[in-house]
Structures are given as C-alpha cells and as structure tokens.
C-alpha cells in the first residue's frame, strides 16, 4: 500500500514544466470538451434572420410524427412536414388536403380520392398503400392519443390507383374530420412507433433536429405540390418557462409564442412590435363534482350542487384572475365546437347560495378541491380565489394540489382518496361536441367498475342519447339529439363552475397571416414575414 511504483526523480525544471503543462492542458481540454459539441448548433446571434420564422413552444416537440405526441402547437409544425387526407379548417369544417374527394357514400362507407400529382419532399408519389399502412400503424402503436379519438379505425379498400374506400363497422359520421389526425408517410418507412425521421408531403422538410432539446429547423420544399409558402425557414424552439417566452418575444428572439397564459397576454398587450391573436377555444376547464359520493352525501343532490354554483363569482374570476382571456361556459361543452348547444349560464348570488344550502341542510359543508399544477392557465389563482368565495358562503374548503406526474389519475378514478371537486381541463381536438360529450357524460356502469366513467358520472339515459347521436348519419337529426342530451346534462349540475379559455397567441408584428384556429393551430404556409 505504501509502496509507490519506482519513479525516476525528475529534475526540478522538468517538474515545473509538467505541472504547468498539466494545468494548461487541463484548462484547455476541459473547455474544449465542454464547448466543442455545441459549436455546431449555436449560431453567432440569437435573433432570427430576415427569412426565418422562430416559434417558441412551451412543450417539447419530441418528433414530427403524431402517433404518440400531439398537442395543439405541435399540430402546426407536424402538419408543415406531414399531411393528412383532410384538415380541420375555419368553422370546424373539414377541408381536403391530400384527398380531393372525401364523401360518405353509405352510413359505413366513405369514398376517397387522392389529389393528382402529390409527392413527398424526396419526389416519391403518394399511393393508396401509404394510406392503408398509415391507418394500420396508428392502430398498432400502444398508448396512442390519436387512437382514442376514433370509435373504431376504418379499413382501407383500394379501388384504383388514386381511389379507395374507407369502411367502418358502425357509422362514424365524423370520419372525414377524424382522418385529419392520421398523417401520411411512405408505406416503406412507416412503423408502429413514433417516427423520428423520414419525409412527408408538406411544404417544409426537416434540415436540422435536436429532438432531445426540442429544437428543429425546417426549410421550404422546392417542389411542393401546393402553393409555395412565403417563409423560407422555420425554426422551432422549446422554451418551457412562460416568463422566458414572454421576454424572448419582447426582445424579438422569438416571432410567435402560442398557448400563452392570460397573464402573459396582459403583459404583452400594447407593447410595440407585439400583436396578440385570439379566438374562442375548444378546451373546456371545469371544476367538476365528484359523482362517486354516497347517496346521503349532500353533493349527491343536484340541488346542493346547484346551490354551490351561486357562490362563485364567475365574472370576477374571468375579469380579474383570467384577465378577460376566457369566457364563462354557457353550455356543457365549448360553444365553438360543432354541435354545441347553449344550455344556461352560471349566476353569482351568494345570499341565495347560503339560503339554499341552509334549506337543504347542507350548511357547514366541507369541500376538498384537487387539481394538477398546470391543468389550465392560472389554475392556482383560480383555485385559491374559489376557495375564498366558498368561504364567504360558509363552506370550508381545502386545496389539494398535485404536481405533474403525481397520482391524480388514481384519485380521479376514485382509487386515491376522497375529494369533492376536481379542476380539470378537457381538450376538444376534433372540433366536435359529440367527441367531448362521449368522453365525459356517456360513461356506463361497466366503465365505472374500473373507475373509467368521467369522475364517476354515470347516467344511463344520457349515455344512450349521446351514443345514439354519435352513430346518427343525418346531421340535422344528430344535432337535435345532441342538443337534447346537453340540456339533460346541464340539469344535473355537473360543475361548480366552468370556463372556456380563449386560444391566445402572441406574435411580432413582422409576422403576418397567422389564421389562428379555435383548435389552437394554424397553417404555416399562409404565414408571411414582413421586413
């Protein structure tokens, strides 16, 4: 142990030399080691060039495929590279993209024709086989968000070089809208997994990607089959901190930030060089009651649930906490969805709340509100404000906040612990009221056995109505049926309060032509850069 290997005693000058060189080499090597790999990905300046559009996303875009990963802003970018047969355009109407014909020929059959002359960015033509493979791959991947939107996946029957039929077992009247979620990739390259590379038919192709950091550079495809996009390059950056995004937009480091919070919108309003865009949204944020309460619990009584809603000053919440960037819900789903019905509104009347609660014997009620951080914008502030409003009508409230990744799902399914109200945001990516209604209010006793009925909401009559509407091929009859179901749901008072956040986006004024859709995405080909 004490023995050291034989070592010739070096002369002093040599010794100092070793020491010096070591220090020098160490410093240089350390710096080089750390900095070298990055030299490639960092440019000289942070500001985007004249022909480059820089988008700041608050979630990391893991890939440009959407089998496992689809959130609003991602759709914008994913569709600039890969396209689907259709897209959901303005007014929630399906617009043809790769298909130039998409018609229902029988309740369970659709006839589709691919557009003539469309090619992938590498020049290969789009074939029916590509579509068939894409549908199959989406079906095979586990845990797909897209798959959950489909009541069933259609089967593809080729009838010609460019034409094919889509078959379903049950009628799926909104299939033309649902198919907007299936992105087409060459059959040879498609696999039942998130594709990390490869080509699409879109106006842009990927020229640089660092998916770990969520950064992408897209460049215009020279021979795009459609109209040539105005912007030459698009850079996608992942900026998780909201405050950083705001600051970066102010300084011109970013050109567009989407899905901004009400507070960011307030901070950006009126700033020179910044413009805000907003449309009514398709996401519904609810303070949903727990429908798994025992029969004798006050909250099992619709009248108590209604009485509590009088305690909430929705107007003030929208004005002061959400800074005007939301609307109180006036129906059980956002009114911008196709097939949504205006069913009533929330009224603020604390005296009535107190009185009703007393007459129903529910005074002295204690309520536990739970939610996950980030479930919706300003979630914490909303919850703290609601708790204070409930206190004013004599209801004691405790707040239970889950951090992302925590156990809230178990609690939601009634397996975690007891709760009374949950703060929940629900997306409406298909633009259809029926999809959202099915997910929330069509739960059956069988679903509930595994805790899968939405917050325990089981009402067989309503569930039947909704499922009937979902398979109704005639649009007018479907809307009638759905409207009736929505009125029935409203009368059960499922929420303490609900609101529909507006879809907000901020851009530099040099960016023009962002047609922000309620589904919170926009068409990159229409965007222009001025100056």
């Amino acid at each position, binding site marked *: 142990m004490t023995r050291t290997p034989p070592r010739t005693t070096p002369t002093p000058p040599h010794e100092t030399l070793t020491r010096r060189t070591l220090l020098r080499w160490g410093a240089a090597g350390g710096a080089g080691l750390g900095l070298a790999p990055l030299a490639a990905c960092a440019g000289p300046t942070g500001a985007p060039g004249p022909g480059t559009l820089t988008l700041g996303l608050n979630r990391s875009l893991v890939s440009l495929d959407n089998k496992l990963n689809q959130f609003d802003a991602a759709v914008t970018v994913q569709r600039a590279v890969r396209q689907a047969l259709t897209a959901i355009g303005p007014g929630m109407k399906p617009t043809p993209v790769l298909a130039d014909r998409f018609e229902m020929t029988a309740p369970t059959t659709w006839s589709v024709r691919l557009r003539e002359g469309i090619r992938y960015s590498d020049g290969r033509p789009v074939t029916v086989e590509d579509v068939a493979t894409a549908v199959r791959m989406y079906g095979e991947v586990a845990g797909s968000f897209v798959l959950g939107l489909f009541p069933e996946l259609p089967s593809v029957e080729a009838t010609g070089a460019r034409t094919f039929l889509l078959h379903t077992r049950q009628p799926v009247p909104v299939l033309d809208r649902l198919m907007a979620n299936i992105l087409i990739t060459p059959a040879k390259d498609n696999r039942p997994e998130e594709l990390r590379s490869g080509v699409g038919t879109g106006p842009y192709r990927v020229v640089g990607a660092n998916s770990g950091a969520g950064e992408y550079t897209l460049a215009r495809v020279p021979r795009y089959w459609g109209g040539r996009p105005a912007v030459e390059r698009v850079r996608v950056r992942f900026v998780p901190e909201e405050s950083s995004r705001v*600051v970066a937009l*102010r300084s011109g480091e970013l050109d567009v930030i989407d899905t901004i919070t009400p507070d960011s919108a307030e*901070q950006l309003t009126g700033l020179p060089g910044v413009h805000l865009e907003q449309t009514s949204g398709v996401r519904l944020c609810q303070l949903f009651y727990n429908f798994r309460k025992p029969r004798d619990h006050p909250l099992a009584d619709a009248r108590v649930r209604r009485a509590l809603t009088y305690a909430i000053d929705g107007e003030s*919440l929208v004005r002061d*906490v959400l800074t005007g960037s939301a609307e109180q819900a006036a129906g059980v789903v956002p009114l911008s969805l196709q097939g949504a019905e205006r069913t009533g509104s929330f009224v603020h009347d604390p005296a009535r709340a107190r009185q009703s609660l007393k007459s129903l014997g529910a005074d002295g009620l204690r309520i536990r509100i739970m939610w996950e951080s980030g479930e919706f914008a300003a979630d914490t502030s909303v919850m*703290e*404000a609601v708790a*204070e409003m409930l206190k004013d009508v004599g209801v004691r409230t405790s707040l239970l906040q889950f951090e992302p990744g925590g156990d809230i799902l178990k609690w939601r399914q009634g397996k975690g612990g007891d709760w009374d109200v949950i703060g929940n945001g629900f997306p409406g990516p298909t633009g259809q009221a029926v999809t959202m209604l099915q997910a929330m209010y069509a739960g059956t006793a069988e679903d509930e056995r595994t805790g899968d009925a939405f917050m325990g909401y089981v009402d067989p009559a309503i569930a039947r109505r909704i499922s009937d509407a979902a398979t109704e091929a005639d649009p007018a009859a479907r809307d009638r049926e759905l409207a009736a179901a929505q009125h029935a749901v409203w009368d059960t008072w499922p929420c303490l309060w609900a609101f529909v956040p507006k879809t907000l986006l901020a851009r530099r004024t040099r960016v023009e032509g962002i047609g922000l859709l309620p589904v919170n995405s926009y068409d990159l080909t229409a965007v222009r850069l001025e100056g």
Partner: protein
Amino acid sequence: MTTTLAPPERPSAVSERHLARSSAARQRRGARVKLWAGAFCTALVALPVALAGLLPLADPNTQDLSRRRLPPLTDGHLFGTDQLGRDLLSRLLHGGQVSLTVGVLAVVVSGLIGIAAGSAAGYFGGWIDTVVSRLLEAQLALPLLMMLLLVVALFGPSVTVITCVIAVAQWPEVARLTRSLVLVEREKPYVAAARLLGLRGWSVLARHIVPNVLRPASLVVLLLLAQAVLLESALSFLGAGPQRPFATWGRIISDGQDYITTSWWLVTLPGLVIALLVVGVNLLGDGLRDRVRTHKPAKGV
C-alpha cells in the same frame, strides 16, 4: 499577556494607535463588524417573522380580487399585493414562519445525525469509519436536488418530510467536521486516562469527547441554517414545497415569476427578504468563527 507584565510607566514605542492597527485588532474588529451586521440583518427579518401574528397586518390569505398586484406603498400595503390581492408583506412574514421552522428543525436533525455519525467514525475507525466515509463521498456524487425532489414526491410534501430531506442533505458537513475534530481529540491524554479508568468506548465518546467537540462543531450550525433556508426555497421553487395553503418563500417567488415584466415586487421583495436573512445568518456564523479563531489561534478548524 505581555501587556500585564509591563509596568505602566515604562515608555514604549508601541502606542495605542499601533495596537489598534495590529493584525489581531483588525481581525477582532472585522469579526465584530460581521457579528453586528449579521445580527442586524437577521433580526430585521427574523423578528417580524416571529411576531407576524402580533403585528397589525392583513390576513395572509384574505383575497381582494379588485386590488390585485398593487405596487408597494399603496393603500396601506407596504409591500404591495400579489396576483390575488393578498398583502405581500403579511404573506412573506407568515410564509417565513414555515420556511424558518423547516430550516431550524432541519439543522437540529442534521446536527444530531452528523455528530453521531461523525464522532463514531472518528473515534472507532475501522468499518464504521469506512461506511461513514463512503456515504459522505457517495453523497457528493449524487444528484442531490433531484433525489430530494424524488423523496418529496415519494412521501408527500409535508413539513416533516421536507425537514428530513434537508437534514439528510446537510448531515455530511457536520459529520465531516465532527470526524476530524474527534480524530484530534481521541489522541489526547484525558481520553487515555478515561480508558485506563475502565470506561468503555461508547461512554468515553459520549461523556468526554462529544462535549469537547460540541462547541467547535456547533459553529457550523448557523451556516447550515442559511443553507437550509436556501434549499427549502429552491425546493418550493421547483414545486416540491409544503402543500398549499402554506405560503413559503420559494413558492411566493415561483408564483410571482410569471409577472416579472409587470409586477417587479412579487419576485424582488421576497428574494430580498430571503437574501437579507441568509446574509445575516452567514455573517453571524462567519463572525463567530473568526472570533473563535482570533481568540484561540492554536485551535484551527
């Protein structure tokens, strides 16, 4: 020592002024400045926090949505109001009670663990020393903050858990110091005497050695307290703070971070309060250490 021997009338070239400029005097003065400044800063924060319940302050949880984000010094809100119209000063002081309680408790716990482990390792050596030293070393390599976040996720963000987590993060410092002190102490004659008198290892350690190392070891306590307050606020900042409605310092800052471009006080003032307290505690600890060093130059730490 020499001054008392010298007769007062004897002439000396060393005047009072020379003495005052001597290195030792300057060191003492420096320590005194640090002590006073530290005590002042600490008291400036700690006293109002301790007396938060008695001060004429708005309730920390009462909201007034029509008075959101008022700048400081408006409508009787000394520090302004937060995003829900709550009085920021009141929230800071009440939040400070949680943060400080966590800090103090964490230091006590880490002190106990550290002194026990460090003195056992130093006195007994052998496998105990190996295990403790390995643990100390391993903790250096661990992604500590991440482990803390994990444990908080595991056991829930209660005050107890966060206290323990911070204590675990801090014990190595105490242990390392105690170990080195005990290593010196154990070679001293009084230990040999105690052994000769037939005392067993544990009682020698507990009754003779530990009391002797306690004083120097306790000097790091204040420095640890400063770190504990910082660590707690970092955890709160990353979302692993005590469950709401407890308003801890880190949580107030992370909630206010979204408003930096419009409401500077929501982040700046809480940060200043933390910094003031931690500076105070650090200075106090530093001053104490300096004073011990100048008084007993032989016993370096």
